[in-house]
């Protein structure tokens, strides 16, 4: 077995992509001429963040990575003074983001940070619910601010109000400011995102570990059940669809829904009857904010929301109607979940003989339950609602740039990074003010074409799961519970360096949800593929998104490339009782649709039978 992964500086360049580095900020590059930095980079373990990024980044989409690079890191290192942790460092290789957690080695420094952490984090834990309420309020406020942003083409002539109201500023200047504000809002929402998340995870991990101390090998599924939120915002969009499905059946509209594949034609069809109108009104009401849910993770510009494509929620409603007609209620059985949660907790409590142990367990459970609503719900507000609106604002801006002759297509803007766009706006508004053609009108379309070619090559490249030197033991909590990067997983990855893809008969990941299942694999790389799923198949996906909910009523199990026991796929599958293996590293490239596979959600092993 190899002892270390490829040195990050030795990753071979892809032919024809030379110069790709300029697509991204310079601080994302592995160093070449700074000896000290280079040495540091070679000594770290960098793992591919496939949890968030199942594909390479177009230059603009890197914005969210930049956002959390700053936000997560600063809360650990400078705000809450987490004793042993600095931030998480980021690099980009052939369009793929690699990350590495930075620890504090000096015991004295750790010691000195303890009282600071206790005071600062303690304040948050003590006032958690109140702070969370305030968090929701200010985040919604920020989203409203975002929704109010309006990008307009530069006028031939400024409105006379500029003159008579003594504005003292013109549209060219405004556009630059508006763009800056938009970007700043994006960064701001990510500041909010991590305000409570690190602490939330720390509490949850503490609970997991405490439970494991008393009850070795306690299944993750059990732990999730113990803390599981009942009124979880992330389940709300799907429950809105279930409501609409039930309403459609009640109004006997199911055949009409069935006959129409697009929402536009359905709208026409239903608009002619009273019940149809009522249903459309209910549909419209559910859209804001609940259809601001991304069909992907929300991290990429092409992850369109239900509001962007109403055919998607419509298809989901139809799946729910099918379930209801088959006598299955797709609703979350809330009362049952509460009863089950209480029973499990009570029974575990009864097992304690030592009152101190019992108290420790109770405390850990209590704090985990307190933080859990935030840990689950923040996703809706930030990654789904805010991001969905944000991508569309960028499209509005892009239209202005297309009309200004700077780029060719609206969707071209993703091939420019945020600094490129700023410069491009500067160029455009100066040319507009001067009344001449802009300098960049030939430069940018050419550059964009080239970048598209580079991106295509990046997509064909399989990023190695890790680079650099693995630590002897992985103890960093986030790497383990979110990314599933454990000491054992690293060993498996190192072993797989010696094996060719075709020879693989077994994949190792983390146990996600209990149970053993055998079945045909269906590789799902994007949301559109979900329609291909046949009942009883095992879904093999890079990672999953909450908007995939209806799929989970169909499949027999799931395998993901990335993720730890707390990732979304694992949480959802536990709720649906589906055997799941997460974090296999390369499941979607090794397994092919139609392969017969057996997955063991208890051991984390996927066998390829044929």
């Amino acid at each position, binding site marked *: 077995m190899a002892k270390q992964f490829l040195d990050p500086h030795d990753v071979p360049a892809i032919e024809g992509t030379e110069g790709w580095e300029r697509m991204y900020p310079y601080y994302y590059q592995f160093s070449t001429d700074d000896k000290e930095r280079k040495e540091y980079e070679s000594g770290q373990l960098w793992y591919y963040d496939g949890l968030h990024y199942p594909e390479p980044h177009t230059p603009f989409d890197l914005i969210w990575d930049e956002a959390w690079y700053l936000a997560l890191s600063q809360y650990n290192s400078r705000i809450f003074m987490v004793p042993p942790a600095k931030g998480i460092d980021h690099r980009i290789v052939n369009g793929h983001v690699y990350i590495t957690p930075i620890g504090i080695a000096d015991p004295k420094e750790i010691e000195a940070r303890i009282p600071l*952490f206790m005071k600062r984090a303690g304040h948050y*834990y003590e006032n958690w619910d109140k702070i969370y309420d305030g968090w929701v309020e200010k985040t919604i406020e920020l989203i409203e601010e975002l929704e109010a942003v309006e990008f307009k083409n530069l006028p031939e002539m400024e409105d006379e109000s500029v003159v008579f109201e003594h504005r003292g500023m013109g549209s060219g200047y405004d556009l630059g400011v508006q763009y800056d504000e938009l970007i700043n809002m994006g960064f701001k929402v990510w500041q909010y995102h991590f305000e409570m998340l690190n602490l939330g995870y720390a509490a949850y991990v*503490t609970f997991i*570990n405490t439970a494991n101390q008393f009850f070795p*090998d306690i299944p993750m599924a059990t732990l999730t059940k113990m803390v599981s939120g009942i009124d979880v915002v992330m389940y709300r969009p799907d429950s809105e669809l279930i409501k609409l499905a039930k309403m459609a059946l009640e109004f006997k509209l199911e055949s009409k829904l069935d006959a129409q594949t697009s929402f536009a034609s359905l709208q026409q069809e239903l608009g002619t009857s009273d019940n149809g109108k009522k249903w459309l009104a209910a549909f419209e009401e559910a859209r804001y904010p609940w259809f601001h849910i991304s069909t992907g993770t929300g991290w990429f510009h092409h992850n369109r929301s239900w509001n962007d494509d109403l055919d998607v929620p419509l298809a989901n409603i139809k799946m729910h109607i099918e379930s209801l007609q088959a006598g299955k209620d797709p609703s979350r059985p809330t009362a049952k979940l509460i009863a089950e949660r209480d029973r499990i907790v009570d029974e575990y409590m009864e097992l304690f003989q030592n009152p101190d*142990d019992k108290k420790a367990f109770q405390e850990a459970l*209590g704090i985990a339950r307190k933080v859990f609503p935030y840990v689950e719900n923040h996703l809706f507000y930030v990654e789904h609602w805010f991001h969905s609106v944000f991508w569309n604002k960028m499209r509005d801006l892009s239209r202005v740039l297309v009309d200004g002759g700077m780029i060719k297509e609206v969707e071209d803007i993703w091939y420019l990074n945020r600094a490129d766009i700023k410069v491009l706006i500067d160029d455009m508004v100066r040319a507009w003010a001067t009344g001449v053609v802009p300098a960049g009108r030939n430069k940018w379309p050419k550059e964009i074409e080239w970048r598209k070619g580079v991106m295509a090559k990046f997509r064909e490249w399989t990023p190695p799961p890790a680079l650099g030197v693995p630590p002897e033991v992985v*103890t960093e909590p986030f790497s383990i*519970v979110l990314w599933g990067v454990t000491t054992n997983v690293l060993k498996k990855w190192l072993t797989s360096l010696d094996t060719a893809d075709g020879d693989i008969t077994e994949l190792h990941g983390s146990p996600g949800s209990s149970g053993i299942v055998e079945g045909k694999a269906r590789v799902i790389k994007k949301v559109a593929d979900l329609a291909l799923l046949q009942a009883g198949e095992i879904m093999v996906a890079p990672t999953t998104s909450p908007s995939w909910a209806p799929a989970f009523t169909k499949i027999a199990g799931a395998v993901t490339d990335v993720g730890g026991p707390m990732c979304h796929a694992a949480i959802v599958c536990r709720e649906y009782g589906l055997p799941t293996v997460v974090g296999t590293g390369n499941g979607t490239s090794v397994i092919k649709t139609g392969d017969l596979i057996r997955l063991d959600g208890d051991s984390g092993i996927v066998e390829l039978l044929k």
Partner: protein
Amino acid sequence: MDNLEKKLTLWYNELKGENFPLVGKKNANLGEMLKADIPISPGFAITIHANDIFMQESGIKVELEQLIANQSKETTPENIVHLSEFAMAAIEKATMPEALEKHILRDYHRLCEICGVEDLPVAVRSSGAVSMPGQMETYLNIRGDRDLSDYIKKCWASSYCIEALTYRVNRDIGVLFNIGVGIPKMVNSKTSGVIFTNNPINGDPSKISIDASYGLGEAVVSGLVTPDSYLIDKITLDPVKIIRGSKEIECVYRTGSSDIVEKEVDEARRKVNSLSPEELRHLCITSKKIEKYYGKAYDIEFGIDADLKFPDNVIILQVRPESVWNKKKAENKKSEPTDAMSMILKQLINGVKFS
């Protein structure tokens, strides 16, 4: 309840622990297990009263009383040997009173019917109202009316064996002693094994451990095979770990006899689990009941009966307290912080140590 005392037989489900003066302890305990909803092999008890009727109607009681009266007050070993030889021979030779035999056979036939097996193999188990461990006989794999009748008499006779008599005389229990007899169906285990209501490796009380293999329990208990090993979450009943054993051999009853033979397990059966998911689940529920009923971790022997349908095929053969961890529990661990903030801090500093 009064009329119980006049009964010749009582089904296990008519009994509870306090009825031991009527049927003996072993029988009464089986009744009690049923009350606790613990599935045992179906069967019935022949009461102590029935033994008394037999002794009276056959005239053996009077003969014995005379023999005792004629003997010297001081009970000598020779006297005991003499008494034993006489009583055992007389009981085995005597004819079972017709009404009593009819009654017993009627119940035996009913048991055959319940199990859907003609000439059902049963055990004939002695059950005294006073504990006399191992003093009296139990006969296995008895089938058919004639054998049953004969072995019941043998069982009665066994309460006059030298060991039992000596035991009673030494303790002033009395020479004349009627016992109960238990007639449970022989468990024809297709799979059997041992359960601990904890994880015996680390004492974790939130787990149930089950070792199971094909055939009769001997294969697992005596370590003839590597059994399937299941670690189950006690509360959710989800499997935590399943290690499939090689299970090359199984023990089965020799047909028409009570001894046991070893047989090879074919390749296909070795490669699948010896317990079905339903059986596994049912065993866990049953184990939890046993633990709850007796108030501590228990060690349980079970069999899955090939002649019965699920869930009636899950049979508990024997239960006893788990010995290691029940004792260790009292020891205290060193004190750890028990407030949330300190726990979180400790967690962050020590990191996560999952495999």
